[in-house]
């Protein structure tokens, strides 16, 4: 069976009124999709924000926050992609970055300094995998669900491009960059609240060196979702940075 919209009043039990059965044709638009009412989205947004701050290991809460607050930023991003030749192709072909689709052996064999080699190095050094990204649940548009999925899968590549590790400091820097690039409220919140958990020494480094650079790069760079990374593994990292407009990391 297919799940019915979560806000519906029960049908038929006491033959409740016809008006309530006038559901807005909510269905599951993609695998994993959970249709939600505006009230539910608001509650989710608030709840996930609190939980994400309370328990930073709840990455799923960060994901939920992104989905429930992205209603303005996501269409924006999608349009940016549509209006760019490479971005448009990505929307058409819907590439996914995951271990099963990546040819790890080939990427490892690429020369040092190339995007592919450095990406694999990043994954190994930080012991992360592209497969841990949450699939979207609360985005009520199938194309926008892909956009947010793409954003999540490209996150590790952001780390690679910016040369930032996955510790708290590195994540905050990447969040600032992403906040400027995507305008997603989740990134903005993450960027604003992330530093709360940093030590003073790290805060200093963040404020004096890393942030100004990240912000400048973010403003200067073209949309990072418009890059078909899977076709650019051989490209040297420096050249890609230059092409995008990301300044060299401090």
């Amino acid at each position, binding site marked *: 069976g297919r799940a019915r919209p979560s806000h519906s009043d029960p049908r038929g039990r006491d033959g409740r009124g016809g008006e309530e059965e006038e559901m807005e044709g909510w*269905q599951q638009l993609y695998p994993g999709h959970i249709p939600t*009412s505006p009230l539910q989205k608001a509650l*989710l947004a608030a709840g996930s924000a609190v939980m994400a701050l309370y328990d930073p290991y709840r990455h799923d809460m960060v994901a*939920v926050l992104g989905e429930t607050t992205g209603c303005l930023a996501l269409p924006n991003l999608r349009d940016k992609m549509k209006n760019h030749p490479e971005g448009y192709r990505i929307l058409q072909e819907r590439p996914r970055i995951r271990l099963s689709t990546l040819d790890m052996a080939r990427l490892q064999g690429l020369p040092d300094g190339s995007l592919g080699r450095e990406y694999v190095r990043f994954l190994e050094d930080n012991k992360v995998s592209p497969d841990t990204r949450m699939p979207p649940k609360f985005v009520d548009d199938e194309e926008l669900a892909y956009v947010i999925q793409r954003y999540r899968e490209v996150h590790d590549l952001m780390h690679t491009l910016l040369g930032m590790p996955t510790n708290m400091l590195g994540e905050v820097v990447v969040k600032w960059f992403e906040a400027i690039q995507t305008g997603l409220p989740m990134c903005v919140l993450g960027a604003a609240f992330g530093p709360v958990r940093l030590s003073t020494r790290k805060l200093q480094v963040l404020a004096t060196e890393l942030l100004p650079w990240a912000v400048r790069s973010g403003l200067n760079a073209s949309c990072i979702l418009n890059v078909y990374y899977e076709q650019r593994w051989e490209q040297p990292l420096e050249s890609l940075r230059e092409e995008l407009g990301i300044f060299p990391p401090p």
Partner: protein
Amino acid sequence: AVRLCRCRALLSQPAGALRARRGLAAGPEMHFGFQTVTEEERREKIYQVFETVAKKYDVMNDSMTLGIHRVWKDILVHKMNPCPGTLLLDVAGGTGDIAFRFINYVRSVRQSQLQRKLKHHQNLSWQEIFESYQNDKFNSLGNSQVVVCDINREMLKVGKQKAQHLGYSEGLSWVLGNAEELPFDDDKFDVYTIAFGIRNVTRIDLALQEAYRVLKPGGRFLCLEFSHVSNPLLSRLYDLYSFQVIPVLGEVIAGDWRSYQYLVESIRQFPPQEELKAMIEDAGFFKVEYENLNFGIVAIHSGFKL
């Protein structure tokens, strides 16, 4: 981009869900929340729900009911009013809430019993008093026992851990079993309870028959379950809260929307008070009554095997 709108063809049919509502399947169809599934699928899905939910079960109960479920369970045990020596079977007892309350209750009753006994013995020598303890096999529970039976391993696991953590060991047993086919002999138990479990049983009629079978003559059946709110205003508020807030709580606290979506749907699918009363009577119980708690959000049904 093509919108993958697999809409109309796949929408579950409300008529089917209605027919399947009572668990007396028309054909192999049954309800799982608002979905329509086969009997086997339903059992499996429910097993998975509780497997997933087990670790956060207690936290979620507290969040969803704002702690009120504790009061409901207290009322159930008070209604039971067990005396020391009672043998209780708590079905779908998973994380042990009823079992622990039962033990606390008989322990305190036993305590008062012993105190009264002590008062009567005040004219005896300390030697005689000591010997009488030995003869009585000083038992803080007065030989009361509770068997916690659940179909789900994960729930039992959580229950056992809780018992250890809270210091319950005496008079407590944990058994893996199916309410529709209990691994116990006839006429064994004084009381049978099922708290927030019968809703998840696929064949309620079988579970009731089993309850009847394993109870001793004179034994009591007690069922605590979500039920039907008849007050229209309250009903709307309750629905609003159930459908809008509870799945969100499930997602935020347990990272699991779907299980809690199932929960609120299954409550709506469950027979209301009178209907459940009739089913209990059908199983052979006498003096079947029910008591609404919180305007029918929850009801306690009681019956006796005579």
